[in-house]
């Protein structure tokens, strides 16, 4: 009983089920999301016939490095499985689309627009997942207050 009192009086959350909010990770999500969106914006501005893979190879590598960094940052935090899975999905899609572009040496407007939109949704999910962790783990109402 005394141990419980000590735990409860220690401040903060007695029970934690999710990782602590990290503003640096949120900023990183926005930064990488912007890089990916700029990549697709520039690609779509280029005529389809001119979208050879070699022209984009360096950008693919640079962005992949930043996405891998985001995955590692998420994996290193305890109780952070959901955000890790979201960032791994982003990485897997990036690698897949890079490979497609490399093999076919072409990236059609139809596919580029749909893929771009998928990344918008995935990065939005990543940002929302991080912001949820910013909620206070305690609530104001207690049982006594409700009973009054």
């Amino acid at each position, binding site marked *: 009983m005394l141990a419980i009192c000590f735990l409860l009086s220690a401040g903060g959350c007695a029970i934690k*089920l999710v990782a602590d909010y990290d503003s640096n990770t949120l900023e990183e999500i926005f930064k990488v999301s912007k890089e990916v969106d700029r990549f697709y914006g520039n690609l779509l501005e280029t005529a389809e016939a001119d979208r050879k893979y070699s022209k984009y190879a360096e950008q693919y590598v640079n962005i992949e490095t930043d996405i891998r960094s985001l995955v590692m940052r998420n994996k290193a935090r305890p109780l952070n499985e959901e955000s890790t899975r979201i960032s791994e999905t982003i990485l897997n899609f990036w690698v897949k689309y890079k490979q497609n572009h490399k093999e076919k040496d072409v990236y059609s407007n*139809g596919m580029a627009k749909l893929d771009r939109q*998928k990344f918008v949704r995935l990065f939005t999910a990543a940002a929302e997942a991080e912001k949820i962790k910013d909620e206070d783990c305690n609530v104001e109402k*207690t049982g006594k207050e409700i009973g009054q």
Partner: protein
Amino acid sequence: MSFNIDETLKEMAEAIKAVFVEEWPKVRGCVKKAIEEERDALAEIARVRLAGEIDDEELKSQLEDERLVLEAALEVCKLEEKVAIQKAVNAALKVLEEAIKSCLPG
């Protein structure tokens, strides 16, 4: 002053219920939003295919990808659920803490 276990348990249950009444709509709203966004994405894929902007092989690839995008969106809802449970448990523990403190001498 003695520690009233039944009364404390009742108040802890009320604290949990109050949290879920407030938090559960957020979880439901999250799932609803994920499904609506998925519906819109699938409609766009269908439109693009019908317009001939992608072929059948690309359509298949896009649909496979959508399953994973929906899963990612639902990970956010799982987090909402965990936060709701975290708040509920902490609310109940706070009730317990206050009940214990009120019984301690001095």
